[in-house]
């Protein structure tokens, strides 16, 4: 059984190797090879899951050490895997959603010449992401962490002929580096504190380490999570990452990779539990991002960017929940899974719409598509209902629990967090309704594309619609199934633990409040876009709208603070290098050269002067020897 864990990672890795090195021969079969291997890893995951269900709660964890990776003296870094309920959840999500998106890509990328490479990258991503979640130590986790960063870079910039895509890939990579540095510092701190970075000893020893150290480790872990999960202040890359092919946005930037930060924080729960200050930082980041993403999502006319803002916001919810400690861990993961279903479904739906509309992304040029794309409309609609938290659908159960948990934090903090989460729910309802209406309802605002070709919207092929349908099922039923008898909570409890908070409000009150804000948000959007005609070019809007369109000025802030500051720093360092460093180096070289030229003249070719120098040398040698004795 343990050996299967390694296979889980190896299968897609093998796929990446075969597809990337296979050459042109594989061009036509590549999509199917990639998809089959992804599906195979899902099957392995399912077998492991079945095995896990067959054991009792405490015995469910599997662990295996494959080989000793870096043995240096007493220091050992092993390649070892650990599969517990938390990892298992991720494995099923990654391989399940991943396989569906592979399937979808077969249709979506059918006309792309470089699809062999595309599927190779997708498999590489799966391998890295699986490694990240089944590693049994932080160092190996870091390998997976960097691996998904690499795969994400390659996939965002997949259409590298577009300068915007190349730039977006670079931006994502650079911003992620900041987070990665955080993770590497965290690992070093762990090593100095605990002498190891295996999950077991680190997390068990956490309560013996000082709070200061735990806070430091927690904060750098949070930095890492911010980078990978696009949380404020490292959020700027996610919107631009939509330059990648839509399946990539669905897989990496909605369902899996961006949740790695949530995994990291949940996995390191013991560290955060011992560092309340770090936890406060986590919930603050979560709450801020939740609103930030939601506001950005309201202003975007690009359907994928609107969804990207939404992703950021939803992950804000998860980070917020994870920051709450044992009250929230399980709900964070539960929301992560349900979000994986409906957000992937929404992205695939968006891709399907673009597919039918000549790759148009501006929602103001859609409208009335529901009758042209019935399957897309229904599946997208179910995803929409799920994300806004319509009663009975997945999002309702998971998001509601997070809001409850936020209130349960207690005190002023609880009220602030709960209020923020509620406000976020209202805005979510608003912007998602806006997306829905602009795309599928109202009159047709279709415009001819750049080549003058008017769009002919049509339903997408079977390989694309099937994954959307499957995901729609998940969007509808997953939350309910998880909540049945607190199934999900009990499943995760051995890993994350669980605590009930002391909520100042009852669950019913929270649900009622959520319903109210949900209704307000939907009504507002309806009033603005459903009743009134929608202009094809966006109106200027007020200051907030304009700022939100520019992602709340994130790039301007980065430009002023980081780029300008960096340029000044660079210039002064270059100046220092030219004057001081080069000065010293060149000066030394010049003086050595000069000295050499002068000493060279002593070598005049006359044996007599050589003899004199020898004689002098002998005299000095003798004198010095005698002098040593005299001294």
């Amino acid at each position: 059984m343990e050996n299967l864990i390694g296979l889980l990672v190896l299968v897609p890795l093998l796929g990446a190797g075969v597809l990337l090195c296979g050459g042109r021969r594989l061009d036509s079969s590549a999509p199917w090879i990639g998809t089959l291997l992804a599906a195979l890893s899902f099957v392995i995951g399912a077998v492991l899951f079945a095995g896990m269900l067959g054991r009792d709660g405490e015995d469910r964890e599997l662990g295996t050490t494959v080989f000793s990776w870096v043995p240096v003296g007493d220091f050992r870094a092993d390649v070892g895997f650990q599969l517990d309920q938390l990892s298992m959840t991720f494995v099923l999500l990654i391989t399940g959603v991943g396989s569906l998106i592979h399937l979808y890509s077969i249709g979506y990328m059918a006309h792309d010449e470089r699809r062999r490479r595309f599927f190779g990258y997708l498999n590489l991503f799966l391998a890295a992401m699986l490694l990240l979640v089944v590693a049994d130590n932080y160092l190996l986790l870091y390998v997976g962490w960097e691996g998904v960063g690499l795969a994400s870079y390659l996939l965002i910039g997949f259409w590298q002929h577009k300068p915007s895509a190349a730039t977006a890939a670079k931006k994502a990579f650079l911003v992620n580096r900041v987070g990665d540095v955080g993770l590497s510092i965290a690992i070093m701190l762990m090593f100095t504190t605990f002498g190891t970075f295996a999950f077991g000893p680190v997390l068990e020893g956490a309560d013996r380490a000082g709070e200061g150290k735990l806070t430091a480790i927690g904060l750098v872990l949070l930095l890492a999570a911010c980078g990978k999960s696009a949380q404020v202040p490292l959020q700027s890359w996610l919107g631009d990452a939509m330059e990648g092919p839509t399946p990539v946005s669905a897989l990496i930037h909605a369902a899996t990779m961006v949740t790695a930060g949530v995994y990291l924080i949940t996995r390191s729960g013991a560290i955060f539990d011992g560092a309340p200050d770090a936890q406060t930082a986590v919930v603050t980041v979560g709450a801020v991002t939740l609103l930030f993403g939601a506001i950005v999502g309201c202003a975007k006319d690009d359907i994928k960017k609107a969804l990207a803002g939404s992703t950021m916001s939803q992950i804000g919810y998860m980070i917020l929940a994870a920051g709450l400690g044992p009250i929230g861990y399980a709900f964070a993961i539960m929301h992560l899974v349900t979000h994986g279903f409906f957000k992937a479904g929404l992205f695939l739906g968006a891709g399907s719409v673009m597919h039918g509309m000549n790759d148009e992304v501006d929602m103001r040029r859609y409208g009335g598509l529901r009758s042209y794309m019935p399957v897309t409309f229904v599946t997208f609609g179910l995803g929409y209902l799920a994300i806004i938290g319509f009663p009975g659908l997945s999002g309702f159960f998971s998001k509601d629990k997070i809001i409850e948990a936020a209130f349960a934090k207690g005190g002023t903090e609880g009220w602030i967090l709960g209020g923020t989460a509620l406000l976020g729910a209202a805005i979510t309802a608003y912007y998602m309704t806006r997306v829905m209406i602009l795309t599928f309802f109202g009159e047709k605002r279709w415009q001819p594309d750049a080549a003058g070709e008017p769009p002919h919207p049509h339903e997408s092929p079977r390989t694309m619609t099937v994954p959307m349908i499957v995901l729609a099922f998940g969007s509808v039923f997953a939350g309910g199934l998880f909540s049945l008898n607190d199934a999900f909570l009990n499943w995760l409890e051995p890993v994350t633990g669980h605590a009930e908070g002391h909520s100042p409000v009852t669950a019913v009150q929270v649900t009622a409040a959520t319903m109210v804000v949900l209704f307000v948000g939907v009504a507002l959007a309806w009033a603005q876009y459903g009743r009134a005609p929608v202009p094809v070019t966006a109106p200027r809007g007020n200051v907030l709208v304009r700022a939100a369109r520019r992602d709340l000025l994130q790039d301007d802030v980065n430009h002023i603070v980081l780029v300008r500051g960096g340029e000044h720093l660079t210039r002064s360092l270059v100046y220092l290098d030219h004057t001081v460093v080069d000065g010293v180096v060149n000066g030394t070289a010049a003086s050595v050269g000069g000295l050499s030229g002068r000493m060279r003249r002593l070598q005049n070719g006359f044996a007599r002067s050589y003899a004199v120098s020898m004689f002098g040398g002998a005299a000095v040698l003798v004198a010095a020897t005698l002098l040593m004795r005299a001294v």
Partner: protein
Amino acid sequence: MSHAASVHSLWTLAAAEAPKKIPAPHIEYAQLSPTLIVLGAAVLGVLVEAFLPRRARYHAQLLLTVVGLAAAFAAVVALAAGGYGSDKAHVAAMGAVAVDGPALFLQGIVLLVGLVAAFTFAERRLEPAANGRPVDSFAAQAATVPGGDAERKAVMAGLATTEVFPVMLFAVGGMLVFPAANDLLTLFVALEVFSLPLYVLCALARRQRLLSQESAVKYFLLGAFSSAFLLFGVALLYGYAGTVTYSGIAEVVGGTTRTVDPALAGTMGNDALLLIGGALVLMGLLFKVGAVPFHMWTPDVYQGAPTPVTGFMAAATKVAAFGALLRLLYVVLPGLRWDWRPVMWAVAIVTMLVGAIVAVTQTDVKRLLAYSSIAHAGFILAGVIATTPDGISSVLFYLGAYSFVTLGAFAVVTLVRDAGGEATHLTQWAGLGRRSPLVAAVFAVFLLAFAGIPLTSGFAGKFAVFKAAAQGGAAPLVIVGVLSSAIAAFFYIRVIVLMFFSEPRTEGPTVAVPSPLTSTAIAVGVAVTVLLGVAPQYFLDLAGQAGTFVR
């Protein structure tokens, strides 16, 4: 016997007394076999010159040399395997020659160097054939006046100086004894035995004979001058100790002396004699290793001598001379450590710096390598000064590594030629990497080894000596050594840049295609350089086992 009677008996014999037999010296022939084989081969070589027809001499000499050197090397290996390098180490030939680890190790290196050098001596494809006969890089007839009629005739006739082989064998024979010499007279004799053939070899270049002869004369004059100092030092040491054997002198220095020789009662135990004598003997050895300020012959001689001879001399002389220096300092003068160490510190520092700095402005490849050899002498001195067992073994290792790099580098120099013979000016090497990437790459390997870049033997050797020096309490020396290495790296890398990143000159030199002889020499050089760089541990261990002197 009364005093008068004893004086009388000096020139008369009492009839009653039978003449005293002079006891025959006890010679351990088997243990001296490496030297005896080489000198025997040399004598045979002289006979070959005398009795074989001209046509047959080249092949006969080459065969004799190779077989002789190989047999001697086999003898060294057999002795070492027989334990003479460790537990059976002792002093042979009535106290004249030591058979111990360092001696056998260095003899082995000298023999291998001689063997590889013999290949380069025998190279006959680089020079254009004369009168239909292939010729080597030695003068057609050494006795002819350069530029004269006789020379022209000899060249036209396609003559060759096949005497170089026995001459070289004599030099090798001397070099075998030099590091093993266990008394000062043997030391001096060995010095002369290997120096005189080298003087002759230096004068034998086929091209640019005046330069070659000038270098030989300079080398001879300065060599004789330094021999005089050495001999004077020997005399003073005899006056101090009443003996010339190393162990005897060491005993007097150490204060565990025997009775005082009445004839030397006035001088024995006089420390001034010891210090001056020791310094003068040291000076003679420092001249041979090319340490500053006794280095000035090096560039001129290296440049003027035929390049195969330069390679041989640069490698083998250094091995033999450092061997003798080690033995002198570790066996004879350890009691004087506090006197000679500061002086040797200064010599090492000056040698490293001068070698590295002056090399920076050199424009001739052979002179550049000469200054490089001076700098390397400084590095090796740093290991010598450590006065620890690690110091000895690191020096042994360094000598082995360095000699093959040097041999290989000079062998490459023989390949780059234009109409006037070897093209040694650096500007002629510009862009060599574009036209002859293999030759340039091989030379780059040697340069990197000289510079001490990791994965070459140069790094392993430098690391070993600097480590030994630092542990022996000579950290400042190590710092100077590293700084000089940095300076030295500049001119080594500069040549690489010149070869690979400059435009080739239109009338640049061509790279001659050598026979398998030179190719083998270069290949061995590269192989040893890389092997000792990548996996030095076995050889470091070997040097470590060989690191104990017998007394």
